[in-house]
C-alpha cells in the first residue's frame, strides 16, 4: 500500500513538474492574422478531421470516398443547403413540382466534371440509378424514377409519394458522380476541389478545380488528416500540424481560445433529447402515467445542462429539430421551464410520495427508472446521463444509467421495450423538418417499423398531423404541421423531452479565414476558406 501511495505521489509530482516546465516554455500566439489572402503558394491547408468513415461500398451500395460523412467538396448535388436550411440551386438552376408525384429539374449548363466530361441529364440519371440500385435512399429513387427530357432537363418520380425531394437531395448521398468513373479509385465530381490522393485512415488530399463553374476557391490544396481521437486533433492543432480541427470537445475550447486560436461554432444541427417509453410493456410501466412524464420535463434545468455539461456550446432549444428549420412555427412548441416544484406536485398527484431515502415510492415500490444511452453512441452523450440522474434525483426519481456498446445493442433493447428513458442525439442532415418525427414516431413510419414506433408512437392526432406534413407540397404548411406534430409529441404527450440543440465546435489557426461552420458537418464548404497574410 505504501509503495503504491509513494508511486502515485511520484507520478503526480513528475507530471506536475513536466507540465510546469512545459508551461514555462510555452510560446505566445505569433500574432498572425489579417484579412488579405497570403500569396498563392501559401494557400495550402491541413484540416484535422475525425475518424475515416468512408466506405468503398460493395454489392449495390455506392462507395462514399470524399463524399460522406466527410464531404470535401469534390462532388455537388442538384441542390445545396445553406446554414439557414434553405435549399439553394447548385447543379440544378430551378425545379418545380408536377402533380401527382414528379419533380422537374432544369440543369446548369456549361459545367464539366473534373475529367472533362460534360455535366448533363445523363450524368444525373447515372447517379440516381446507382442510388436506386442501393435501395433508393430516403427519396425513394427507383430504376425508372429518372427520365431525361432533354440534355438539361430531367424529371424524377420517386417510388412513393414524396413532396420533399429537393430537401432530401441536399444530402451528399445524392451528389452527382461522373458517368463511367470508379468512385473508389478516382472520385470525379464537379465540385470546387479535385481529388488528388487517399490513404485510408490517414489522409485524403484535394486540389483546387481551376475550371470550376462557380467562384474559384483561394486554397490551392487541402489535406484532410483523419485523427479519430478528440484530444489528438486538439494536440495536432496546438503543435501546428493542422490549421483547423473539426469537432473539438467543448471542454478544450477555452484554453485553445486563450492560446490565440479562433473558434467557429455552427448553428444547432442536432438535438439532445430523451424519449420516454410509455408502452407499458415488459414491466416498464411507470411512464404510462402522463403526469410522471411531464414531471421529468419540469425537473431538468437546461440552463445548467448547457453551461455545465456543454460548457456553453449548445443551444437552449426545445424543438427536437433545429428551430430555424421551422421558422416562426417553432414558437408553437413550448417545451419545459425548469420548475422542480411543479415536477414534485405532479409526482405527488400521481401517487409517488417521498420515501425515507429521498426516493419516491408508491405501494412500496420505488420510483426507479432505467436510462439507456447508446444512440448514436454512449460516448457521444458525455456526462449528460449523470447530469440527468442528478436532476431527477432532486425530485425523488432514482435513475439507473445503462450505456449500450453500439446502436445495434441499443435498438435490440428497444425491441424488447427494455428501458424507461432513452437518451438520443439526432442529426438534421437534410432540409426536411418532418423527416425525423415521421421516421421515428409516425405509427406507420416513413420506412415502416424501424423499432421505435412500438415503444414511442403516440398515434391518434399525431399520426394525422404528421401524415399531412409529409403529404403537403406547401413549404409553410409543412413547417406549421411539423411544429404542431412536435407540440403534440413534446408538450402534450411528453414522449419527447428535448434537452438542448447541439452544435459542432471547430477551432482554427489565427491565419485561417473564411470558414463558416454548417449546422450539419456534412455541409461544410471549404471553397471560401483562405490563409490570410
Amino acid at each position: 500500500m505504501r509503495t503504491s501511495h509513494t508511486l502515485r505521489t511520484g507520478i503526480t509530482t513528475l507530471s506536475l513538474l513536466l507540465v510546469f516546465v512545459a508551461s514555462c516554455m510555452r510560446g505566445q500566439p505569433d500574432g498572425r492574422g489579417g484579412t488579405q489572402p497570403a500569396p498563392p503558394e501559401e494557400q495550402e491547408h491541413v484540416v484535422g478531421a475525425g475518424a475515416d468513415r468512408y466506405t468503398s461500398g460493395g454489392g449495390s451500395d455506392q462507395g462514399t470516398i470524399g463524399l460522406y460523412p466527410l464531404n470535401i467538396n469534390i462532388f455537388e448535388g442538384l441542390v445545396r443547403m445553406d446554414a439557414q436550411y434553405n435549399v439553394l440551386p447548385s447543379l440544378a438552376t430551378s425545379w418545380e413540382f408536377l402533380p401527382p408525384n414528379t419533380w422537374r429539374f432544369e440543369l446548369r449548363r456549361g459545367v464539366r466534371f473534373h475529367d472533362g466530361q460534360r455535366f448533363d441529364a445523363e450524368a444525373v440519371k447515372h447517379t440516381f440509378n446507382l442510388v436506386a440500385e442501393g435501395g433508393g435512399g430516403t427519396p425513394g429513387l427507383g430504376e425508372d424514377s429518372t427520365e431525361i427530357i432533354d440534355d438539361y432537363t430531367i424529371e424524377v418520380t420517386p417510388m412513393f409519394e414524396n413532396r420533399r425531394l429537393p430537401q432530401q437531395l441536399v444530402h451528399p448521398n445524392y451528389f452527382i458522380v461522373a458517368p463511367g468513373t470508379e468512385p473508389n479509385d478516382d472520385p470525379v465530381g464537379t465540385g470546387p476541389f479535385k481529388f488528388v490522393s487517399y490513404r485510408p485512415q490517414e489522409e485524403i488530399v484535394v486540389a483546387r478545380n481551376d475550371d470550376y463553374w462557380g467562384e474559384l476557391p483561394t486554397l490551392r490544396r487541402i489535406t484532410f488528416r483523419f485523427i479519430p481521437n478528440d484530444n489528438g486533433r486538439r494536440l495536432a492543432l496546438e503543435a501546428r500540424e493542422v490549421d483547423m480541427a473539426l469537432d473539438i470537445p467543448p471542454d478544450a475550447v477555452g484554453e485553445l481560445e486563450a492560446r490565440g486560436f479562433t473558434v467557429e461554432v455552427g448553428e444547432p444541427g442536432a438535438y439532445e433529447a430523451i424519449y420516454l417509453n410509455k408502452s407499458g410493456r415488459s414491466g416498464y410501466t411507470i411512464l404510462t402515467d402522463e403526469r410522471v412524464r411531464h414531471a421529468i420535463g419540469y425537473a431538468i434545468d437546461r440552463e445548467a445542462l448547457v453551461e455545465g455539461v456543454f460548457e456553453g456550446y449548445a443551444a437552449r432549444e426545445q424543438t427536437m429539430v433545429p428551430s430555424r428549420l421551422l421558422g416562426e412555427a417553432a414558437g408553437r412548441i413550448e417545451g419545459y421551464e425548469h420548475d422542480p416544484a411543479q415536477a414534485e406536485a405532479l409526482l405527488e398527484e400521481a401517487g409517488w410520495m417521498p420515501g425515507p431515502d429521498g426516493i419516491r415510492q408508491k405501494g412500496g415500490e420505488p420510483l426507479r427508472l432505467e436510462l439507456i444511452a447508446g444512440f448514436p453512441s454512449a460516448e457521444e452523450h458525455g456526462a449528460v446521463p449523470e447530469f440527468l440522474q442528478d436532476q431527477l434525483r432532486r425530485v425523488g426519481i432514482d435513475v439507473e444509467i445503462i450505456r449500450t456498446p453500439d446502436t445495434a445493442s441499443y435498438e435490440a433493447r428497444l425491441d424488447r421495450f427494455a428501458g424507461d428513458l432513452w437518451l438520443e442525439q439526432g442529426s438534421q442532415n437534410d432540409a426536411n423538418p418532418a423527416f425525423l418525427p415521421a421516421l421515428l414516431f409516425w405509427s406507420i413510419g416513413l420506412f415502416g417499423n424501424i423499432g421505435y414506433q412500438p415503444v414511442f408512437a403516440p398515434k391518434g392526432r399525431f399520426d394525422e398531423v404528421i401524415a399531412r406534413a409529409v403529404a403537403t407540397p406547401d413549404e409553410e404548411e409543412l413547417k406549421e404541421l411539423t411544429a404542431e406534430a412536435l407540440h403534440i409529441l413534446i408538450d402534450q404527450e411528453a414522449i419527447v423531452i428535448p434537452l438542448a440543440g447541439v452544435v459542432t465546435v471547430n477551432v482554427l489557426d489565427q491565419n485561417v479565414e473564411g470558414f463558416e461552420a454548417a449546422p450539419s458537418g456534412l455541409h461544410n464548404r471549404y471553397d471560401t476558406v483562405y490563409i490570410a497574410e
Partner: protein
Amino acid sequence: MVAYIARRVAYLIPTWIGITLLAFFLVRLAPGDAAHSYFVRVHDRQPNQAELASTRARLGLDRPLPIQYLDWLGGAVRGDLGTSYYSGREVTDELVSRFPATLQLATAATLITLVIAIPLGVVAAIRRNSLLDHLLRVAALLGASVPAFWLALLLIIVFSVELQWLPALGRDGLQHLVLPALALALGEAAVVARLMRSSLLEVLGEDYIMTARAKGVPERRVVIRHALRNSLGAVVTEVGMVFAILLAYSAVIEIIFVWPGIGRLAVEAIGQRDYTMLQGFVVFSGTVFVLVSLVVDLVYLWLDPRVALAQGRGVR
C-alpha cells in the same frame, strides 16, 4: 534436433486453427450487429426489419455460423481474409499494407528498449544497493507503472506542442517515429532492465567469476568479457517476447499518434463492429506471434542444443 524442429512446426497447425476458431467465434460473442451498423452508416438512418434482413444477406451474416466459419477459413488458408464490412476493402490487403508501420514501430521500440535497458541493468547490478541502483530501481518501477497512453500524451505536449522539436502525429519520416517508439519502449525497458540486473547478479555470483577475480582479472574485464556475455542469454531470449508484446501494445500508441498500423486498424474495427477486419487482425497477429515464438525457440535451440535433447526425453 530435426525431429524437434519438425514437431515444433507441426504444432503450428492446430495452434493456428485454434486461433481462427477463437477469432471467429469470440468476435461474434461481442454485443452488436454488424449489419445494423453497416446500414446506419451507409444510409444515415435506422433500418426496418426487411432492410436489416437484406443487409444481413448481402454481408453473408444470415447463414449458419459453422458455414460462415468454414467459408471464411477456406479463404484464410488461401490468404483471403474476406472483405471489410466497414470500408469494403480487402482485409488481407489492409493488414499487409499496414503491418510494415506496426513492424517499424515495434522494431524501433525493441531497439530503444535494449539500448536503454542493458546499460541500466548492468550499472544497477555492478553498483548493487548503491544510490544509483536505488534510483534506477525507482526509475524502472516508474517506467513499468506509468501507462503508455499517459506517457505518449506527455511526450506530445512537451516535444511537439511546446518545444515543437518533433512531429506529434502521422508517419512521414524517421522523425515521426521517435515519440511513438519512445512511448512504447520506456515501460518495457524498465522490465528488461530489471531482468538484466538480476540475470547479471546471478552470473556474478557464479564460481567461475570468483575464480576469474581470484586470478586477478580486472573487474571491467570480468563483467564485460565473462559475466555479461553469459547473462545476456536470458535477455536475448526475452527479446522475442518483448517484440511480440510491443506488437500487441502498439494499438494504444498507434491510436494516440495516428500511426497507420494494424493495432489502430483493430481498435477502430472494434468500434465499427467490423467482424471480418477483427477476425483478420486476430488471425494475422496471432500468426505473427506464433511465428515469432517459433523463431525464438529455434534461436534458443541454436544457443543451447540441450533443449532439443531434453524435449526428446520428455523433460520439461
